Structure formats: structure tokens, C-alpha cells
């Protein structure tokens, strides 16, 4: 396309950034990653929650969960380790106390959740099915920081398939399944959860890591190991998203190390239909807005009228 045409387009109209994930309509493909955006209200003073594609909550469980001992976080080079241990208010308190705030905001709410047992996964799915304000759920079978956080399900394709089937049966909402990168071949898990009924796949969760304070010779996290997130893991995340996109037909949400617009573009180009921003929210609470604006500006510059022209446009 010639430069002239591009310029003309740019003048004529703004690119269409709307995408659909598992039947959920998003005004643009940018949303927070679970656990890095609280229940939404924590960041309300810093950005317009109606500008982002969706709100994704901290992972919920059936009962409230107190989380891991401290220290729970450690900064690493271009990344951070966390072992929060899925501290959360529980699904009922979420519905009673956190959802009312979100109800007022014109942005789809995606609820991330996990279970300690298969039964719990099913039960939470059932409870969320009844809540009209929940646009969809994101099933976490990938948290590395608690024994029951799903990693056992997430690293074994058979177990993953089982938990997804069960949730599928108990759920009347769109189902996104979030995968762990701590596996030999993520496309195997991806195919397994797709077959079991996932409407979309989100990847990646954090990579298990560890850091040591050499003076005290103790792990820098009380939990010993934690999940590595942030820019450091981006090349691994891009590779895995690319792999999963090749392996499945359902839409894929890319997450891992996105800080700038150009990072989000990498994921879209390899085929992610949407992206999540995690650790970057801590660095800049308005990071998602900058990323949305940057994606739009890139589309204008490149003469892209609809974001779907960009999604999966990798040339190999």
C-alpha cells in the first residue's frame, strides 16, 4: 500500500479495534492480567476503566484465601517474582462487595478463578453462572505458587481436560482457560483444553523462578519459588502464544511482559486476538491506555482499518 493511500486513510477514520473473545465483545483488545489489577476499583483513580477492553479480576476461590507468608515479591532483572498464594476474598464476598462497583462500569467483567479440588472448580463455575454482570470467566489451571492453584491440572493435559470439562458442564458463560508455560509442549495442553470445551485460551501465566539473598543465604520469597513476570519473559510468551495459535482454532489471549504498545503488537501479529497487561500496571497505572493509543496510532500509520488485518499477520 502506498504512503499516499495510508495518509488518506488516516485522515478519513479511526481504525476499528473491536474484537470478540469467546463471544465477549471488547471495544479493543487490551485488558489487565488477573492478579495485577485487584478487583478493578483499586486502579479506578488512575485510568478510565471504560476505555479498556475488559476488566479481569484477581483469581477467586470458593472460600476466602489468606495467601502465602511474606516476603511475597522480589524484583529481578526486568521482571519480578511473586508468590502471593492467590489471596482473595472468595467468590461470595466478591459478588457481594466488589461486583457492585464494577456493575456501574460499561466494560465487560471477566472473573478469574481456581479451585482447591475438582469439586470446587465446579462449584465456583456454578455460582458465577448466575451472575449477569459476569461477562465470562477465566479458569486458572496454572498458578505455580500454591499446591492447589491449578498447576497440577495445568501441567498434565489429561487433568487439564478433566477440569475444563467439569467447569464447562457447570458454566453457562464463555470460558477462557489460562495455561501455564511450565510445560514441555504448551500446544498439547492447548489442544486438550480446546477439546474439553474452552471457548478461548489465555497464555502465559508466570514461569516458576527463584532468587536468593546471598547475604542471608535464604530464598528471597518465603515460598522459596515464585512466578516470574514482566518484560524478561516476553520472548518466551510470544513464542508460546505463536505455538498455541498454530495448534487451536479458538481465539488466544496473549500475556507476558507487555509494557509498551510495540510489545502488544508482537502478540497480535503472531495471532493473539487480545492481550493482557500484568506487571506493567505496577510500573505505570495507565499503561493500558498508552498501549491502546499506541496500537491505534500504529494502525493509522500502517493504513490498517481493522485490527483483524493485524492479528496473525506474521510473515514467515
Amino acid at each position: 500500500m502506498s504512503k499516499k493511500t495510508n495518509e488518506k486513510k488516516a485522515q478519513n477514520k479511526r481504525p476499528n479495534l473491536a474484537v470478540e473473545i469467546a463471544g465477549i465483545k471488547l471495544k479493543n483488545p487490551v485488558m489487565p492480567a488477573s492478579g495485577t489489577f485487584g478487583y478493578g476499583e483499586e486502579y479506578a483513580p488512575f485510568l478510565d476503566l471504560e476505555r479498556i477492553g475488559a476488566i479481569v479480576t484477581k483469581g477467586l476461590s470458593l472460600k476466602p484465601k489468606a495467601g502465602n507468608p511474606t516476603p511475597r515479591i522480589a524484583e529481578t532483572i526486568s521482571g519480578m517474582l511473586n508468590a502471593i498464594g492467590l489471596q482473595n476474598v472468595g467468590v461470595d464476598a466478591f459478588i457481594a462487595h466488589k461486583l457492585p462497583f464494577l456493575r456501574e462500569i460499561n466494560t465487560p467483567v471477566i472473573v478469574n478463578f481456581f479451585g482447591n479440588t475438582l469439586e470446587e472448580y465446579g462449584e465456583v463455575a456454578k455460582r458465577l453462572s448466575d451472575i449477569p454482570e459476569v461477562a465470562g470467566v477465566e479458569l486458572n489451571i496454572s498458578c505455580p505458587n500454591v499446591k492447589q492453584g491449578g498447576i497440577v491440572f495445568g501441567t498434565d493435559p489429561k487433568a487439564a481436560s478433566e477440569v475444563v470439562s467439569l467447569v464447562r458442564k457447570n458454566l453457562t458463560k464463555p470460558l477462557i482457560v489460562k495455561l501455564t508455560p511450565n510445560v514441555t509442549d504448551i500446544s498439547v495442553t492447548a489442544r486438550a483444553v480446546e477439546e474439553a470445551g474452552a471457548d478461548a485460551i489465555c497464555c502465559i501465566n508466570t514461569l516458576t523462578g527463584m532468587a536468593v539473598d546471598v547475604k542471608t543465604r535464604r530464598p528471597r520469597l518465603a515460598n522459596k519459588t515464585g512466578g516470574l513476570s514482566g518484560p524478561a519473559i516476553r520472548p518466551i510468551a510470544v513464542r508460546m502464544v505463536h505455538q498455541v495459535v498454530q495448534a487451536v482454532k479458538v481465539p488466544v489471549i496473549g500475556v507476558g511482559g507487555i509494557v509498551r504498545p510495540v510489545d502488544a503488537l508482537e502478540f497480535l501479529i503472531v495471532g493473539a486476538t487480545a492481550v493482557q497487561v500484568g506487571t506493567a500496571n505496577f510500573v505505570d497505572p495507565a499503561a493500558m491506555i498508552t498501549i491502546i493509543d499506541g496500537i491505534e496510532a500504529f494502525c493509522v500509520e500502517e493504513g490498517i482499518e481493522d485490527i483483524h488485518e493485524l492479528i496473525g499477520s506474521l510473515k514467515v
Partner: protein
Amino acid sequence: MKNYKTVILSNQEISPGYFRMRILTPGFGEKAKPGQFLMFRVQLSLPPLLRRPFGIFRTGFMPADCEGQPPKEFVEILYKVVGRGTDIMSRLQVGNQVEVLGPLGRGFDLGNPAEEKILVGGGIGLVPLYMLANELTHKSSVRLLMGGRTRDDILAVTEFERLGVETYVSTDDGSLGEEGLVTQVLKRKLDKFPNASVYACGPMPMIEAVQAICEERGVSLQVSLEALMACGVGACLGCVVKGAGHSESTPRYLCSCKEGPVFRAEQLDWKKLGQEPGFCEGCKI
């Protein structure tokens, strides 16, 4: 509560290893309460990845300049160089772009004006006490007990004096003020004013010793704690501390950035508070 995309107005070493930085922040002062903090983005390019939490030392206005520019509102922080982030900070210059998220957290409860107020500061822990002293001196008699390892760790005491605060300095090596621990001074003052309320901020061992003294004497205590923080706004749950009644089977965590950093002593689980691996001081990741 806002993210200020702003610039540095000044940044000077005030004692070996300690710096004072002024940052342009229009409107910040109206909202800031004593004991609150801010999250400082060291530089726009990474690293360091995460912001650094700093107490608000004070807010104020730079006088209008001769070109008729209006007065500039600023926030001031005092910081100690301990690791990579503060090292980079110490080399920032006037006009450099930084970001400040704040004011954050829950500050000090000013309490009953009739009570004597004793503020206990250890080293850089003095920071959140200045705005507190400024408020308290309007109505109460205020004493500052300031401790440090050497005279280099005793900061800004004359500024407290200018507020009308009676100050008592002690250093471990006796290089300034009385030789010994600040807690020793605290005991003497409490002997004299057994109904005073105490406000403390400083290194963990000092805070724990202060708590033991106050508990023993039934004196009201508020402490400002330091915890590792990623978000500063209650979203990541990385900064929790153990609350009263905490046990392994029934864990009770309080969010340091949102429910703190100032806590009433009764809110916390003092048996376990300080027993964990500390920060990676000076590791300069």
C-alpha cells in the same frame, strides 16, 4: 491520588548517603496527610522495573520567580542510598522526568490533642514524622526522639526544632547527642509522661523495642512500617504484614500499602513481625 508525570526540582546530598529530592507536584499538598507515602518511578526507561515507595517528608511551594511565574508546588522526599534504585535516583538531576504516584496509604491518627506526643525516629525513619509533627504542634506538646548509628544518620533535626518540637538526639557511637539507643531515651521520657502517645518509624529492631516498651507501659503506639511493594494501591497483595491473631492455620494479613503503612500497635502480630528474610539491601539487582 494521581500519577504525576513530572520533573525534579532539586536533588541534593544532605548527609553522606542521604539525599533530599524536590519534585514538582501541583495539587499534591492539599491531599497529602501525615504518614502517607508515594511510589516513585526512578526513570521512564527500565530498569528498575518496579517503583520505589518513599514517605512524604513535606509538601510546599517554591516562591514565585522574578519572571512572574506562579509559585511551584512540590513534594519533598528524603532517601537513603541502599540499592540500585536509590543509586540511580542519587544521580538524577534537576529537570529529569520522573513519575510520582500518590499520596497513598493510610496516615497517622492525630489522637487526643490533650495527650503529650512522643515521636521516635530511627535514621531515615524520621521522614513521615515531619508532617505529623507539623500537624501535632498546633495543639499538643511534641517531642522527637531521634536515633541513628552515627551523626551522619541524624537528619533534619533543626527543621523539627523550627516547628517548636523538643528534640533529643542519640547515636550508637555518641558522635552526636547522647550515646546509646533511642529506646533508652524513650523510657526516660515515658517515665516523665506516662500518658503520652507514641509514634514510631525506623528500622525493625527499633520498632520492635519501642513496641515492647509501649506494651509494657500500656502506652498508645502507632508505627509506620516498610514492606516490599509492587503496586502501592492494594492490587498486588505483595506488601502484606501479619495482623493480630495471625497463625499458620488462620493467617491474617493486612495490606501495608492500603491499610497501612501506619498501623496501631494492636493491629499487628508482634510475635512474628520481624522474623522474616529482610530486604536485599544493596544487592542492586
